[in-house]
């Protein structure tokens, strides 16, 4: 069934906008903004705010309607479907079916200096009331921190005989994260150890399809909780262990 944005009345198609045009404000600025939205296919455009942000730029807040609709059932993609488990169930699964601790090594790699992502998932206290991987008694989790060269991450993972490698990439300007992530894959392949690890990447610009495309086993985007990552790791490592 087709749906469209719901503002005030079902199917009215109302969307709110804010944007900046690189033009000085003048009396016709509102019409420029309005016609721009009409060119995008919107109608019933209302310019709510149109003001000079400085001598060169004009800022707009606008409302407009669309006749475009979408059928959610027709949206297909590569989504990571993880059965989310609780803390006790994850530990029990590892203990009973892997029979040893699940080893995880994580880092923000190369020039990325931001630990916020890897910390949220791995640090003892975790995030949003969700314990981090270090707190799981059945995991042997090491958070190496930020700016860790790929080679050092791999060396550590091999030394600890880890089951999984977690990589965080926060900085994405000029697609630097793609370079870093590719570098890690290439290193793992060159060393012939790609298949030894469940390889997971997380970050604000990461999704599962993108991660798979780069050669990772899974990708987690914003708002991911440690529980989701832990559930995935436990299920995936146990599955591989039982298939082997």
């Amino acid at each position, binding site marked *: 069934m087709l749906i469209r944005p719901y503002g005030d009345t079902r199917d009215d198609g109302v969307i709110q906008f804010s944007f*900046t045009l690189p033009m000085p404000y003048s009396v016709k600025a509102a019409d420029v903004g309005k016609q721009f939205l009409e060119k995008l296919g919107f109608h019933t455009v209302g310019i709510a705010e149109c003001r000079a942000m*400085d001598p060169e*730029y004009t800022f707009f807040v606008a409302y407009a309607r669309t006749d475009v609709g979408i059928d959610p059932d027709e949206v297909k993609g590569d989504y990571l479907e993880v059965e989310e488990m609780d803390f006790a169930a994850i530990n029990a699964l590892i203990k009973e079916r892997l029979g040893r601790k699940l080893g995880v090594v994580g880092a923000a790699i*190369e*020039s990325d200096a931001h630990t916020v992502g890897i*910390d949220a998932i791995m640090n003892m206290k975790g995030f949003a009331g969700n314990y981090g991987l270090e707190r799981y008694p059945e995991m042997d989790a090491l958070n190496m921190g930020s700016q860790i060269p790929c080679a050092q991450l791999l060396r550590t993972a091999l030394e600890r005989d880890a089951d999984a490698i977690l990589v965080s990439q926060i900085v994405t*300007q*000029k697609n630097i994260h793609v370079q870093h992530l590719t570098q890690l894959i290439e290193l793992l392949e060159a060393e012939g150890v790609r298949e030894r690890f469940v390889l997971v990447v997380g970050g*604000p610009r990461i999704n599962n399809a993108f991660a798979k495309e780069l050669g990772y086993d899974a990708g987690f985007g914003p708002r991911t909780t440690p529980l989701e990552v832990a559930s995935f790791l436990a299920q995936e490592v146990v599955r591989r262990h039982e298939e082997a």
Partner: protein
Amino acid sequence: MSDALQLNGDLVDRARAAADAIADDIQRHIDEHTTDTTERASLRLLGITGVNEIDVPLVNVVVEHARSLLPSGILRPFVDLMDRTGRGAQEVAEGVAAGELTLAPVPPERCEGVEARAEALAREGVARIDAVRARRNELVATVGEPPKPYVYVIVATGNIYEDAAQAKAAARAGADVIAVIRTTAQSLLDYVPYGETTEGFGGTYATQENFRLMRAALDEVGEELGHYVRLCNYASGLCMPEIATMGALERLDMMLNDSMYGIIFRNINMQRTFVDQYLSRLINARAGIVINTGEDNYLTTADAFEAGHTVVSSDFINEAFALRANLEPWQIGLGHAFEIDPAKPDQVVYQIADAQLIRQLFPGYPLKYMPPTKYMPGDIFQGHIIDGMFNFTGILTGQEIMLLGMLTEALHTPLLQDRYVSIRNAKYVFEACRHLADEISYKPSGLIERRADEQLRRAVEQLEHVRSIGLFKALQNGEFADVKRDPDGGRGFEGVIKVAPDYFNPFFAALREGRMSGPPRGTERGETTAGDSAVAGGGD
């Protein structure tokens, strides 16, 4: 405002006494060591600049070349070589880089003359810094001064020319301080890159050329707006004193310059950072630069509600180190933030308690208040309100440098309009509440006073504990930000050098000698001649 909370004066005295003892202990270590970057900065202060044919800075080439001489300091043999060749500092450095000239130990009979000449050169180097500081004072006096708190925003395009365009737009929208974000990897480079940056990752390099370009852009827009626009960068990482030197010469006004940040958050060796911060701060002190410390970062890794007192303790430690490096209180922008989970009931009440506590503990200091980041949602509308409450707390508690929160903090580096609406948010709140603080005193033994008292008590406990075990050991134990560091580990340890008894570096004395005092003073925008005191730029 300054006494809105009743604090236990004994606790405050105990905190300062402990911080003083902690800093004195480390200062002894600092005085017994030099570092690669300390020696390189000394060469930069002589006026040496530029790179060799493979882009290695000449100061790095010279210091590497003279590695065995470093325990006695680079300057005696370097100035001796200038004397012997009759060449200037730059030509001698170029000669060494070209392999034509060789640095050698100075025979005792030449030492006295060489040292006198080096002292004169050091005074000349410092005089160049003084001239830049005088120029700032003159500009602030003639162009004018914005009202406090300063609105501080960040530009981070990775292209210095685009940064300059965005910075001007931000200034026109009401920003008073522009911080140019440095490319993330620079903190771990053991040299300072050269030239302009047009394709940086997550920022531009801190280079002298980038500093110069941005300074020119801000002077231009400041003239247009009728108030001086301040420029901030990072004297941090493995090259703290060298970047401070460049900032002093290119008239930066603020520098992120923390005594412990690099240790905790960049895994830079602690001995290295303590030595490096000292010269970098002496330079900033001389240059009239306001330093910003980085305690706000502690609570991105540790929990704000539980570990808030570590920010208080660290502010005391940073203060003690800063005073030892000759900085005046108006130059010490202690950083803080206590970002408590917005889901916690009374979050803003605790936020006010923490911010007011810091305000009262450090009167006369231009405190830098850091915005919410960790709990900022993707829902920008909610984020805008959280920022609004942060702005409210800032004006209520008399913070002076407000790094503005962006509603899109969780999403991307700010778009032009993100910065614009965030500045509008802040300006509205600051004007709407301008005199609110004068009307407020806190309920004795109320929630706010109890929270502030507890934070102070826990900070005193921590400081006295750190004094008893020493700061190296405390950092090893992970007592700040939950991050553990090894005194002999981390980056840059190989560049820490124990000094010989005849170590010589005249800059340490020259930087302290006869310097200017007090902040720049200018007339506030919109101020009438009949108005009350025209104090601008912070109390002294």
